[in-house]
């Protein structure tokens, strides 16, 4: 596979050289926010972490407190509309990004200068370069553009890359498919759930086999965890190679290299860019760094951000940390295992067993007869916890074969997750995730508390 350089100086440097640059950027970043933001000055003074006291990365990690969504929301409440984190004058701002508010806690607000936007869109473009996206390519983006970060940055990034961008976000699935075929889109960007929805629409409403009837050969996915089985199914169904990227409202953070989300029979790696961000992976309770191979909470300090910088922001996302050598591409960047990123607050703990929805996705969507499903956790009359999975079959699944499929799914779920689940055929139309920006919510927690 041909090596692609997005930033040759960084990709061919030694780990020590990149880490030396990282520390200098951390130092500058700390001085910058201390000088310009009352929010950070107060926090750093309170923690005894004034820039002149922080002389190494270890000092930084030991002294600078973690910040969380609640810190950002409280600051916004007290200092609307940008918070006292803002480090530039408002007339330098060119963009505002907001979280979706799906947590129900509140919407974070981040402001960007023009250089911040260039920075974010260029980091996204780095992942695109690794996916061999080049000027002249036709790219279909299914992200509707609004005030969310991803939608704005993806749109702006493709414009910077001089590709022919089909911005299809506002159209229904049928229209998206027709426009993709009309203009010969070879690259598609979507969530894994929306890819399934789009494929189902192509099959049932247009009679298309997307692997044969569309020229798509690369797909960029994000926002949902996935297993190797699910990624293999998506690659096979679409006849395309998957590349994952990971970002948040706080910034675009990582992407696969040219190896993609699946490589030589295993999940790929989302490479970290140490010269652009300090990314820590910490145990969610002890806040100690996890070892390679372990999962932990992603904590980000994006370096060089001008308007709404963050220091050690605990994202609430979990990821499995891997060493650079695990990938074999030769870049000096550690990374996260592809598919391993999920929200800690999406985790369900039932009868003492923890699982994430992407784990049940893996088992259930491995069955090609399943179109959709909905899981529900409830409290039984005796106070115990019950799991029910309603399954919607693909229309041409023979009725006589369905009871056996349900039994097999229940057995597979028990074997894979370690929990007994009641698996039944849905007697209603299950929710579809037709809006690419809405993260698929296939599990409902209706336990009485």
């Amino acid at each position, binding site marked *: 596979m041909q090596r692609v350089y997005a930033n040759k100086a960084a990709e061919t440097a030694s780990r020590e050289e990149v880490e030396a640059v990282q520390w200098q950027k951390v130092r500058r970043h700390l001085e910058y926010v201390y000088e310009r933001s009352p929010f950070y000055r107060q926090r750093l003074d309170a923690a005894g972490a004034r820039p002149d006291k922080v002389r190494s990365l270890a000092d930084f990690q030991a002294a600078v407190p973690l910040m969380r969504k609640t810190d950002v929301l409280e600051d916004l409440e007290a200092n609307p509309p940008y918070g006292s984190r803002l480090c530039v004058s408002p007339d330098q701002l060119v963009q505002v990004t907001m979280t979706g508010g799906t947590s129900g806690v509140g919407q974070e607000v981040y402001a960007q200068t023009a250089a911040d936007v260039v920075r974010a869109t*260029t980091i996204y473009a780095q992942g695109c370069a690794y996916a061999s996206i080049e000027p002249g390519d036709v790219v279909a983006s299914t992200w509707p553009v609004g005030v969310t970060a991803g939608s704005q940055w993806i749109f702006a990034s493709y414009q910077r890359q001089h590709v022919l961008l089909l911005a299809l976000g506002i159209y229904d699935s049928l229209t998206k498919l027709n426009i993709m075929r009309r203009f010969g889109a070879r690259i598609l960007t979507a969530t894994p759930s929306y890819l399934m929805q789009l494929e189902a629409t192509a099959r049932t409403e247009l009679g298309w086999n997307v692997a044969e009837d569309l020229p798509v050969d690369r797909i960029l996915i994000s926002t949902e965890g996935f297993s190797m089985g699910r990624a293999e199914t998506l690659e096979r169904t679409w006849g395309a190679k998957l590349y994952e990227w990971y970002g948040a409202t706080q910034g675009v953070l990582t992407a696969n290299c040219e190896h993609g989300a699946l490589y030589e029979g295993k999940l790929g790696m989302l490479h970290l860019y140490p010269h652009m961000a300090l990314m820590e992976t910490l145990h969610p309770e002890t806040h100690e760094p996890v070892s390679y191979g372990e999962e932990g909470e992603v904590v980000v300090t994006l370096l060089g951000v001008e308007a709404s910088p963050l220091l050690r922001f605990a994202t609430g996302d979990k990821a499995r940390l891997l060493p650079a050598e695990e990938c074999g591409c030769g870049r000096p960047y550690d990374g996260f295992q592809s598919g391993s990123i999920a929200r800690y607050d999406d985790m369900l703990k039932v009868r003492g067993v923890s699982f994430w929805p992407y784990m049940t996705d893996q088992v259930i969507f491995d069955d090609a007869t399943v179109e959709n499903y909905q899981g529900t956790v409830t409290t039984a009359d005796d106070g115990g916890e019950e799991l029910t999975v309603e399954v919607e079959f693909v229309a041409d699944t023979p009725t006589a074969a369905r009871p056996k499929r349900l039994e097999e799914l229940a057995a597979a779920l028990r074997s894979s997750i370690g929990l007994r689940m009641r698996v039944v055929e849905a007697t209603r139309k299950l929710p579809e995730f037709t809006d690419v920006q809405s993260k698929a919510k296939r599990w409902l927690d209706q336990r009485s508390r």
Partner: protein
Amino acid sequence: MSTAKEGGRVVALPGTDETVGALRQVLALVEPLAQQESVLLRAYALTVVAETRAALDHLGAAPVE
């Protein structure tokens, strides 16, 4: 190829001294243009300034050290 240094301190990624120097010169030239009266020319200059600042950041360098 060695790590770019100024006053003994690491300031940018290895082998990028000349590029960083050139980008800083661009910034010094264009930043004053971003103040001018003509709105459209100011917009072009602001774009160059933003791109240049971001490029320096990608090379691990500050706009001015």
